[in-house]
Structure formats: C-alpha cells, structure tokens
C-alpha cells in the first residue's frame, strides 16, 4: 500500500468517526471522546517509543500537568471557560513542553532500561506533588471541574465537545505525521535504528532526542487539557504510573512507530475497559487475552496485520513496526 493510500484510509476512518459517532448513544459519544483525548497522549508517546526508540514510563506526567493546569485555572481563576479555552490549549502545549524540557535534561542522557527507570521516577515525582500538594491539587480528592467552556458554542453539549476533541486530535495527528516524515523525523528513526552511526554521520543525536522529548511532552500536555474537560475531574489517578503504562501498552498493542496504531490501541482498550465492562463481568480476561495474543503473535502490533498478510507470499522479510521506509513493502 502506498503511503498516500494509507493517509486516505486514515482520513476516511476519521471522517467516518465524525459522521457515525454523533448518531450513537450519548454514552458512546462520551467513550469516543475519551478514547480520542487519550489517543493524543498515546501518539505523543509513540513519537518517543516507536520513532526515536525511547521507551518512556513517565508520559502521564505531561498529561497530568496539562490536566491539573486546566482544572486549577478553571476552578481557582475562572480562566479558560470562554474563548480563552484556546489559550488554555496553547498553555497546555507549553506547560507540557516546559516540563519535558526540564525532565529531558535529566532523562535523555540515559538509554534503554535506565531511561525507562528515570522517566518512571520523574513521572512519580509529579504524582507525588499532585498527591501531597493539597492546597493546590486537592490531594487524593482531586479537582472537580464546574462545567465546560462556552464561547458561542457550548462545549457541555457532548456532540459539540466531541467535534472539538476530534478536530484537535486530527490536528495533532497531522502535525505528528508531518513531523515524523520530515528530515527531522527521519533522523529520529535513524537514531532508533543505530544511534552510533547517526553520531558518526555528524548528527547531534542528544539534541534530536531532546527535541523529540519536548515535542512529545507538548502533545502530552494538550491531551491533558482535553482529558480534564472530558472527565470533569482531575485526580492523582491521571498522573500515576498505571496511566503511563496504559499509554505504553496501547501504543504497543496498536503497533509502535505507526502513530495511528496507538489510536487503535486506545480505542480497543477504552472499548474493553469502559464499554465491555458494562456488558460482561469477565472483561478483564478479554483485555488480558488481547495483550497476550498480540505480544505472542503480532510483535508489530495490530498495525502489523496487513503487513503480515501481504508477506505470506514473500517469506524471509523481517518484521517491523510498519515503517515503509525501512522495509521494502510491496505496494
């Protein structure tokens, strides 16, 4: 499949989502909105995991600061409840980027397991703050938002809000897609494949990774802003390690290094955890089975399925995350 056809497929899928979801029940709309908002976080993680080869366990930190900032501005300063919502979106990007710029200084020098551990530790620092800084964050009780922004359009309407989140999701996806296809994105892939060689070619790989880390943080912050308004409550639960792990699992489930794979992962996990759990009590087994089967049989994630099917006729080709540049994919 050519990359143009892939893009068209994704655009068609998003358009289909935009058309179909509003005609379902309001619970479905809510779930779709949640999945979309979380998808942005998963995609931001995929920038690091799938494209730069950095497995971060602290992505929820940026998500958390974005969400807490939104909630604190809204409840303490009544800011961001009108047109200034767009300013909050911008601040979300900025605060995520700023925090990542700080954490990146500490984390980027590490690689592999050490990177995993240091991002984990930094993420838990933010969790600790959220949990203990009672006067600002409400501690364990979290912060309740009092309604969504209203500026000509009323975001407390589920359908309107769904479209806003969908639009920001679309923009994020587009921005990240452009990014990973840019020369900068290519150099990240190069670092993922062989950092030493990139260094020898004269790339400042530390700086490249640092910038990727900051960009991922920015999108994490944006996801947090949207999440705060989607859920209506921000609590230390949003910053805790399991949220980071969730994002990581979703990215791997869908297929790391594909951006859209993370979105599929987010939809599947949200679907199982929040929809299937209303239908059957044994939903956890389904979730577990999906994870285990994917890891056993689809190392490239769900996005690896078409690749696998096509490669049936051409044995010997190496599995990959679906990056068409690295594997000469037949079109």
């Amino acid at each position: 499949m050519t990359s143009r056809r892939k893009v068209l497929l994704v655009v068609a899928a998003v358009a289909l989502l935009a058309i179909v979801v509003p005609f379902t029940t309001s619970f479905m709309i809510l779930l779709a909105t949640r999945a979309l908002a979380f998808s942005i976080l998963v995609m931001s993680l995929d920038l690091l995991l799938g494209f730069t080869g950095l497995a971060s366990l602290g992505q929820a930190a940026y998500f958390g600061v974005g969400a807490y900032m939104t909630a604190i501005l809204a409840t303490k300063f009544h800011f961001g409840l009108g047109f200034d919502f767009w300013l909050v979106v911008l601040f979300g990007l900025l605060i995520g980027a700023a925090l990542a710029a700080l954490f990146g200084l500490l984390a980027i020098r590490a690689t592999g397991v050490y990177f995993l551990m240091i991002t984990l530790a930094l993420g838990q620092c933010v969790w600790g703050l959220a949990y203990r800084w009672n006067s600002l964050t409400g501690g364990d009780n979290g912060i309740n938002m009092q309604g969504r922004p209203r500026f000509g359009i009323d975001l407390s309407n589920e359908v309107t809000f769904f479209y806003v989140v969908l639009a920001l999701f679309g923009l994020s996806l587009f921005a990240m897609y452009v990014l990973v296809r840019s020369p900068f994105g290519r150099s990240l892939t190069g670092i993922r494949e062989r950092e030493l060689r990139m260094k020898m070619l004269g790339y400042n790989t530390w700086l490249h990774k640092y910038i990727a880390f900051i960009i991922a943080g920015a999108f994490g912050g944006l996801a947090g802003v949207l999440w705060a308004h989607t859920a209506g409550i921000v609590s230390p639960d949003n910053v805790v390690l399991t949220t980071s792990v969730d994002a990581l699992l979703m990215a791997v489930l869908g297929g790391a290094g594909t951006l859209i794979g993370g979105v599929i992962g987010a939809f599947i996990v949200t679907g199982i955890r929040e929809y299937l759990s209303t239908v059957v009590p044994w939903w956890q087994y389904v979730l577990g089975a999906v994870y285990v089967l994917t890891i056993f049989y689809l190392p490239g994630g769900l996005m690896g399925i078409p690749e696998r099917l096509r490669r049936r006729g051409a044995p010997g080709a190496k599995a990959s995350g679906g990056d068409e540049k690295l594997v000469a994919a037949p079109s």
Partner: protein
Amino acid sequence: MTDTWLRRLGSILLAGACAAGASSGASAEEVRIGFLAAMTGPFAAVGRDMVDGFQMYLDEHKTGFGGAQVKFILEDTQAKPDVAVTKARKLILQDHVNMIIGGILASTGYALAPVSTAEKTVYIASIPAADDLTQRQLAKYPYFIRTGWSSSQPSHPFGQWACEQGYKKIAVIAADYAFGYEVVGGFQKAFEECGGRIIQKLWPALGTKDFGPYIPAIKQDADAIFTLMVGPMSLQFPKQFAAAGNKKPVIGGGTSYDEFVLPAMGDEAIDGVTPLQYSAALETPKNEAFVKAYRAKYNRIPSYFSESNYTTAQMIDAIMQKTGGKWPGGEQFVKMMQGLKLDAVRGPVSFDEMRNPVQNIYIRKVERRKMFGYDKAELWNTVIKTYPNVGQFWKYDKAEFLKQPVYSRDYPPCKFCE
C-alpha cells in the same frame, strides 16, 4: 434489490417491536437503580461487600419496592474517580436510572456529586464519607444525600471517650489522604477540647505495607496510639506494631479494625478500640438476624460496607411504599428521604438538615469470643459504649463548626507536637 429491501424492512420492524416492548415494560411501575462499586482492583473485596448488602435486601423483597419492580444495574468503577464518572453517565444517559448509589473512596464521592447535579439525578452516597459533601459544599449538590456517615462523625464522641479513659497524650499514625485527615481532625478537636494533647502526627502513604520506618518514631511518652488504617494497611500495622513490642493501648478510626479485615487478623488486634456507626457484634435482635442471614448467604460476616448498603435499600423501599410505587421525582425523593426515620440494622437513623444521617456511634473493642451461637471463638467488635443519636456536628454549633476549615493535614494545627 427487493430482497435486501425486504430484509431491511424486516429489521426495522423488529427494531420497532423491540422498542415498543421496551417502552411498554417501562410503563409498569419501576424504580431503576444504578449501583457503582469497585468490582476489580484493590478495592474489589469492599465493592463485593457493598453489592452483597444491597442485593440481600433485594432478594428478601422480591415483590419489589412498594409495588414497583426494582431494576438493579451494577457498574464497575475500578476504584478510579474518572471511570466512576463515565459509568455514572452511562447509567443515567443510557439506562435512564432514577438514582445512582455507591462509590467507595471520598474522591469518588466528590467526583459523582457534580454529575448528579448536572444530570439532575439522585446520588446516594452509601459509603463515601468526605465531610464536605454534607457540609461546606452541600449547596452545590441538591440531588445528593448520604446514608453512610461523614468521616469525622464517629471521631467527635470518640475524642470525649478518650478523655474519659484518662488518656492525656496521644500519638497519631494515620493514612495520608483526605479521609485520614478528617477522621484524625475530628478526634483531635474533641480530644483537645476536653484537655487531651495530640503530641505527634505521622502520615504514612496510603497503601503502606512496611511500617518499619514509622514504628520506632512513635513517641514513647504517649498514653495511647491513635491509628487510622485502611485496606491492607489495617492488616499490617497491628502485626508489625505488636512485633515491635508495643504495650500501649491502640485506638483508632473505624476502618482500622472493621469486620472486613478482622477475619484475617490474629491476636494482635485484640483490645483495639474504634468508633463507628455499626458493629457486626451489635447485640440487637435485628442485627443478629442480619448477621446470621448474611453469613448463611455469603459465608462472611457483614461489614459496615454491607450494612450501609442494605440499609440504603431499606430506605428506598420505605419511600417507594409511601408513594405507592410511583417514582416521586428526584427533588421530592431527596426531600422524602431527608424526612425519613428508620429503625435500621445499625439502630435508629434519621437525617439532619444537611442530609447526613443522625445515628448511634458505637465504641467497639476487638475481643475474641463466641457470638450469636456460632461455635467458634472469633474476633468481634464488641460494643462497649453507645453514644446515641450523634450528628455530624455532634454537640458543636453548626454555624460555628462550618466556619472552621475542613479538617486537613494542617487543621487542626498540632499545637503540642514538637
């Protein structure tokens, strides 16, 4: 062409028939109850107790509430506030429930109350005990009522009780979160007002299992130790504290020794004293019957989580009987509930004007004994004193009480700590 068209027509007809069937079902008197509890995750066992308590009442009253059929829909909150919110919306928007009940942690209570306001649906907090839900924030939640307790409610009379035991100095070790602050805060206020002194406050994180760093730090000149533990902490602390050679009396918040953890505890729990609005060892015919029925059915001793939800079901039943099975509407329902006076398993329960229960507070001491004709000696929370009809403000003036900030890590300030 015609074939597919016919098939499509058929499916439309089928859908129509289903819809008609559904609506005719709904036209019979029915009360729809959405129940939110953690069925997975670390609080799953507590969630089970809640559901079993409610379910037991439903099973005992199969004919429905005042003639209305009860539609009981259970959703799993996974003990996460934002999942609870999503599930609450599902119950309200998709299942069209008349009320939502449940939640465990205070954070879930704070998350669900605004949903009830936004969706104009009754929310009954049968477990979440956060003080401010029925205190400083009540005005925001017109569809909210509490049937359990507020965190500091048992602590106030308990402070007085501690003075009466002759304790002068008490050291506190309590879980580091809002529920802990409120239980400790209420105790400190009452205890210091009758002449006692809190000389130390230690706050291990929620979920701490190794108290090694905390136990040696506990001041040796304290007359007693006040603990507030929850979940797995309740199990670990008394064990490690006894192993460290403690001989001082241990008192604490209700969850430190509730029926939910007692069966897993050993002799180290004996003589622990805690206050709560319920004890499974309450020697009334009503409670004896309740404990026996519950144990026969679920093979466990009921905890306050079970009792509170059983009683909540009983309260809803009482109201539906008054209305003859007709749903009175959310506002009216809350109003009627507030006016309710009920002889519950835990004793007489009524409501104050801020929709919090007024009820007996039992001072309970852990003892190994035989109860209710069971042939094995087990750990029970024997009631050693009853404070009748305790409200959330106890003997304090309501207006003045509400002027003080909600109990927190720093309030009341620890004047006698060094």
